[in-house]
């Protein structure tokens, strides 16, 4: 069994975090459904949480400040999801659509 497969360290968690963040960013940029954009934002926030917790456990496991930051990220993302879904519902009521391209009326 190769070493990188058997010994799980910080770099593995950071790689997963990076991959999840990249996929979330791809979803934010490319998807046309508004709720899918919100889900991709949540994915990016979760990737950040993985990085925070992995760093905390590796660099200074006796402090737990990284986990406190992660709790704040979780709180803020819950608030963001609530406001975002309220906006989606208001937009759907106004335009009867959840396609991102139908909300481009501010384009100059």
């Amino acid at each position, binding site marked *: 069994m190769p070493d990188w497969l058997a010994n799980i360290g910080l770099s593995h968690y950071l790689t997963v975090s990076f991959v999840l963040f990249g996929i979330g960013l791809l979803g934010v940029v490319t998807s046309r459904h*508004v709720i899918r954009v919100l889900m991709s934002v949540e994915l990016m926030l979760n990737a950040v*949480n*993985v990085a925070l*917790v992995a760093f905390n456990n590796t660099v200074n496991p006796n402090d737990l*400040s990284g986990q406190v930051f992660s709790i704040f990220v979780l709180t803020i993302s819950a608030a963001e*999801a609530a406001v975002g*879904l309220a906006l989606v519902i208001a937009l759907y009521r106004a*335009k009867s659509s*959840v396609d991102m391209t139908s909300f481009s009326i501010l384009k100059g």
Partner: protein
Amino acid sequence: MIEPIIFWTFALIAVGGALGVVLHRSILYSALFLIATFLSIAAFFVLNNADFLAVAQTVVYAVGLTIVMLFGIMFTGQLPFAKRTDGKTVSLAPPVAVFIFLTLLAAVALSAFVLFPVGDLLPQTVLELTKEGTTKMLGKLLFSSYVFPFELASVLLLVAMMGAIVISKRELDGDVVMTHVAVEPDETGALACALNANSDASSDSVQGDSQARILTTV
């Protein structure tokens, strides 16, 4: 030697679920893929000495937030949620679900009572910090060093809750929100007119008229 197996399993599930969120055609399945990714990330938290965060992740993200997302999908979607025309998939799904459930039940029972005594199952890095977990230390930190951000977060949650209610509530009749726009509030309300609503209204001519008046006013 069990930590790499757990890590690679949940890494595959997390990345696959994330790809499913972004790439799947149906938004409903995307939400279900999101649950898989959230639960895998909770497993990463367990592997990193963050047991409280793992539970919080499961409760807040994988259950609460996904249910809110599903509510949003079902409020706004015109999807065929109950598509039962194809009898093949319907007849295949319940045995698969029952099989997965029984396999998981057998695995949990076998590992918890026969193979590993509870405590030896987790790798050595987990729960090395304190035997009672991280909840106590997190609480002390939250109320000592981080008490100001903590209170700020509570205010933020309150503001977000009120904002969500105000944004998504239906406009009342005659409730003029944007008084500087010279449009008479019709059934959808003035804000909907200002947002150029082209549906949900009584007639298109009224909408076009009000839109023209908004343009001339602004």
